[in-house]
């Protein structure tokens, strides 16, 4: 490929470094009013009355609204595609302002004023009378008999949803254990039963949550917001206000990070409402850092009551888990994340007898949990990989070998049909182990004494790329040719710092043949103009939206070649676009018509076979129209993670062929330059004979998915008397398909690893007994600083995934997954102490080392 796979500088690098790139509040009109949300000072109860008389007297106050004034409409906030099936719709469980207070800091009133000082002065003067109920901050409190149901209109108790997944319908752990005792004898079994916990944490994106809204002259309420999901936000605002979607417009400029917090609709509907009640004047609602940390969304705290059973020889037989998550006050993303935790816990290992995992999403009177980078899988990985290493420690197994023998196998098909196509998890493990000198260090660090000890640990993960078939995956793209032969690319999968604009530009360039410097991606989304896409979340953009970009680029290319055919009076099939020129197309070999593997109507025998076997199998680069294999075809087959090239006649048994639509015509080279794109475009615009404004716009309904995977290996030392952990060496190895931009990919991994580091050691949101957040600021909520981050090493195993538009698959979220359990397992190796919860703060480590008699 010409452009995809190269480390182009970010298209937004210059603007972001120089400060020219405009973020939401950079665009704020000078006459904007400022809004301040008034928040409850209790965690659970009812607002009886609100006295605003003193507050209204503050000079500069424009409007005060309370929970008694807002429309009586409950709405959902999740950044999910809407479902046309009522049963799958997100749960509407909050109003713009709420009289029923369900968390400390719940939004009960709002002040709009000439400036923020006035708004804050007025807010301090508002008097609220409550009827107070017992705060139920923890999962245990919310599930206790007699606990107040927080949403009695929706649920009889505080269990939002309970699901149960099993590898087979008749699996039962206790039955499996009986069977194991019969088969192996009790003395030949290893069992671990324990409870593991992960904390509630904050995303800590640098740009706070902010928006401003006004009513435009055409009557549309227009909201400029720092969001990942402009089109979803538009729909949610319309639901919250009871206005038609067409009367709502959302504009998303550059944003300073979201990490899933902005994959939810936050205070933007309230902001729209405040503008409307102020006669359409522009109102800005910017949350403080403290509000962002404690009053927006968080990662679900999770408790897993787990059991695992293995033979003395290191064969994993069975596991089960009852997994509870703290949803907080409102549904937000509903049960999706809890479901993700339980599914991933079950699927990452291969239990010979089976596995059961039950998930409970629990409403509590505390901060709302929603989406956060990797959507439940960091929790799942901590549960699964802690249990794995505790089994290894008890059974004396090498954790690497145990995982090699018992992890998710090649060709894995999840119960919902998602298939692990390009499998290189075990290859990743091999690479990581080599880098960290696993065998050598495991031996070297055995039997240490003294206060400072070293250890190596590892963790693995797998991660589904998009949300199909759980949810809709749909994406549109638009391309417009300019008079100079350059193009605009317009999408609604948003740039949120991850580099989406850059790789989409690369894709458009790759497929059209127009060079990167002539591809202008429109970074701002305006829902009145930008084609529909559900936005930036999951690790879907380069996969799902990438397919729309490719489809659109192919269409644009066809239209350009059609016009070239008219100008040059030659058949379009003889022409190609290469580096901004129309060239003669030279065939160096027989080309193939590529066959799409997911097309269920395709009766090509190889494709059918691939679908049937659902194995990683092999894919063929060069296949004839009839599906027969050309003599020049090369085959890559993979079994058990080993990739080998095979001759046509020597395909190993059991492999299936899967054909990938690369979108790139192979074995074609450009010949003579016939016409420049500039001449073509100018002619197309202004020809007196055939004027044609060349554009393309497509929708791609994506019904494909696959898994990415990878691992982390860490070598660390523990200073036990001080509870300090020092990372001496760390590596993430990722199986993320073909890299679109290696430099950006590496940067993605660096950021994710740092998040993992904080998750492992320092980050947790703390609450007082009455539900008040204790550390909702960047001083007391401890994300790692530059001084805390060791040198980070990253490797990739680039195996083309047949499902990805350019062989690519997920990378945005996965880097954050494996670091915490790897550190946890390295501490276990160093000290013999099995930590049951993260973050493994210094205080918790010191307490654990004291209990173990180590200090």
């Amino acid at each position, binding site marked *: 490929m010409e452009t995809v796979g190269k480390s182009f500088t970010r298209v937004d690098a210059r603007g972001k470094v120089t400060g020219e790139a405009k973020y939401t509040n950079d665009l704020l009109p000078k006459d904007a009013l400022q809004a301040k949300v008034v928040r409850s000072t209790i965690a659970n109860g009812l607002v009886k009355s609100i006295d605003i008389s003193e507050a209204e007297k503050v000079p500069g106050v424009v409007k005060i609204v309370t929970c008694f004034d807002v429309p009586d409409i409950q709405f959902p906030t999740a950044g999910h595609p809407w479902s046309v099936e009522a049963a799958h719709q997100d749960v509407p469980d909050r109003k713009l302002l709420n009289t029923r207070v369900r968390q400390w800091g719940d939004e009960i009133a709002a002040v709009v004023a000439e400036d923020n000082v006035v708004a804050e002065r007025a807010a301090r003067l508002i008097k609220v009378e409550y009827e107070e109920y017992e705060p139920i901050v923890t999962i245990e409190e919310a599930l206790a008999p007699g606990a107040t149901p927080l949403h009695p209109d929706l649920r009889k108790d505080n269990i939002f949803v309970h699901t149960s997944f099993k590898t087979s319908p008749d699996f039962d752990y206790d039955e499996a254990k009986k069977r194991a005792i019969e088969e192996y004898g009790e003395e030949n079994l290893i069992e671990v039963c324990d409870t593991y916990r992960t904390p509630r944490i904050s995303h800590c994106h640098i740009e706070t949550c902010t928006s401003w809204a006004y009513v435009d002259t055409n009557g549309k309420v227009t909201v400029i917001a720092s969001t990942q999901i402009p089109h979803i936000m538009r729909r949610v605002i319309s639901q919250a206000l009871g206005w038609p979607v067409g009367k709502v417009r959302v504009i998303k400029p550059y944003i300073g990070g979201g990490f899933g917090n902005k994959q939810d609709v936050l205070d933007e509907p309230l902001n729209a409402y405040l503008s409307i009640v102020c006669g359409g004047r522009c109102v800005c609602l910017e949350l403080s850092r403290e509000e962002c940390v404690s009053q927006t969304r968080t990662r679900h705290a999770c408790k897993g009551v787990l059991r695992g059973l293995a033979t003395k020889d290191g064969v994993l037989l069975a596991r089960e888990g009852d997994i509870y998550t703290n949803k907080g006050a409102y549904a937000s993303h509903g049960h999706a994340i809890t479901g993700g935790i339980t599914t991933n816990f079950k699927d990452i290992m291969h239990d010979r007898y089976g596995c059961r995992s039950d998930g409970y999403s629990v409403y509590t009177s505390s901060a709302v949990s929603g989406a956060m980078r990797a959507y439940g899988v960091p929790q799942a990985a901590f549960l699964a990989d802690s249990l794995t290493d505790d089994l290894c420690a008890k059974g004396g197994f090498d954790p690497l070998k145990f995982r090699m023998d018992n992890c998710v196998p090649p060709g894995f098909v999840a119960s919902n049909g998602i298939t692990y196509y390009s499998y290189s998890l075990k290859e990743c493990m091999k690479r990581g182990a080599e880098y960290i000198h696993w065998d050598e260090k495991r031996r070297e660090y055995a039997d240490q004494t003294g206060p400072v000890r070293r250890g190596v640990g590892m963790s693995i993960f797998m991660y589904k790329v998009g949300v199909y078939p759980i949810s809709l995956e749909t994406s549109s793209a638009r391309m417009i040719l300019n008079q100079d032969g350059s193009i605009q690319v317009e999408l609604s999968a948003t740039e949120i710092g991850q580099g989406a604009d850059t790789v989409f530009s690369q894709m458009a360039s790759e497929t059209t043949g127009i060079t990167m410097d002539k591809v202008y991606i429109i970074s701002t989304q305006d829902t009145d103009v930008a084609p529909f896409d559900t936005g930036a979340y999951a690790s879907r953009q380069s996969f799902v939206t990438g397919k729309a970009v490719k489809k659109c680029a192919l269409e644009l290319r066809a239209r350009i070649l059609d016009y070239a055919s008219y100008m040059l009076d030659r058949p379009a099939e003889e022409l190609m676009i290469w580096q901004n020129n129309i060239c003669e197309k030279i065939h160096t070999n027989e080309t193939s018509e590529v066959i799409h593997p997911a097309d269920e109507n395709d009766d090509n025998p190889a494709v059918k076979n691939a679908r049937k076997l659902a194995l990683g199998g092999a894919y063929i680069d060069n296949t004839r129209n009839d599906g027969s294999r050309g003599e020049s075809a090369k085959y890559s087959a993979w079994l058990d993670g080993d990739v080998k090239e095979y001759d046509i006649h020597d395909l190993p048994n059991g492999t299936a062929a899967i054909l990938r639509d690369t979108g790139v015509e192979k074995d074609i080279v450009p010949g003579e330059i016939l016409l420049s794109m500039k001449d073509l475009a100018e002619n197309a615009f202004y020809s007196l004979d055939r004027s044609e404004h060349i554009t393309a716009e497509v929708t791609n309904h994506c019904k494909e998915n696959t898994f990415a995977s990878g691992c982390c290996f860490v070598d660390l030392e523990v200073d036990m008397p001080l509870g300090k952990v020092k990372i001496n060496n760390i590596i993430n190895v990722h199986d993320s398909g073909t890299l679109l931009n290696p430099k950006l990919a590496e940067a993605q991994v660096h950021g994710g690893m740092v998040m993992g580091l904080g998750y492992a050691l320092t980050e947790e949101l703390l609450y007082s007994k009455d539900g008040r957040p204790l550390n909702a600021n960047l001083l007391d909520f401890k994300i790692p600083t530059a001084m805390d981050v060791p040198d980070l090493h990253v490797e990739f195993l680039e195996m083309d995934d047949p499902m990805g538009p350019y062989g690519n698959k997920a990378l945005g979220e996965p880097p954050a997954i494996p670091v915490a359990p790897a550190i946890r397992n390295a501490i276990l190796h160093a000290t013999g102490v099995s930590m049951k919860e993260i973050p493994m*703060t210094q205080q918790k480590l010191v307490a654990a080392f004291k209990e173990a008699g180590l200090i």
Partner: protein
Amino acid sequence: MFDIEQYYEAKSVEDAVRLLSEHEDAEIISGGTDVLVKLREGKGAGGTLVSIHEIPSLHGVRCLPGGTLEIGPATCFTDITNHPLIRRYVPYLGEAVDTVGGPQVRNQGTIGGNVCNGATSADSAATLQTLNAVVVLQGTGGVRRVPVTEFYTGPGRTVRRHDEVCRAIEIAPEDYVGFTGSYMKYGKRAAMEIATLGCCVRVKLDEAGETILDARIGYGVAAPTPIRCRNTEGALAGRRVDDPGIYELIGTGVLDEVNPRSSWRASKEFRLQLISELARRALREAVDRSLNHEAPKTACSDEERR
């Protein structure tokens, strides 16, 4: 926008004292790294600020006749760390204030604010305690000199009266000549931290480098105010540095002289563990530095006066 009703820029210490006496609600602001954070939280909102930031005499480090080091309270942490007099005579103080926050905070925050806000967690506190530093205060009633060991009256409270401005922090030659020291800050991460615990140990050895003549132990966050551990200091005096027992002595001795509290930030038990362990490590480093001939042999002199 910050909610500040009135803001005065004092031209001199006398001017600042006058402004403070005229405005009962006034707060002194210098670097602003504490005051503005509190204002943002609504504490003191709508009040009056008197800035001492532009008073030239409050900046810099000087050597006074007789060898006393004088530190201007409006000197920012970065300037203290990098100052030649600090580096030569009390480098551990420079190291201590180099652990405050991050580079931006250290370029802005001042040592006078660090002392006068009365926080037990101030990074200069433990070290200044061991230096017997003197806080020079000027108010409507004139000038008075308060030893830093008598300066604190409780958490966030000091003897400084509303109309008093800290004019200087002084360190006498007998408190630094011949000494080495080590400050150990303990936080949950390597920067942007308020100390979970701060410990400074300083020693003065005999000519031969064999025996401890004088030991000083100072803590931040080991009690509601910064403290010294004088009993343990006394027990260390006269002990040989090659005796491993001195580390056990300091590690256990200090536990009888501290009074840490439990909070959601750290438990008392955890702080006690740190108090003991950090003392051992700081003593070892201070001794190593003495054995490495790092102690200043003389007081600062007239040639160094600026």
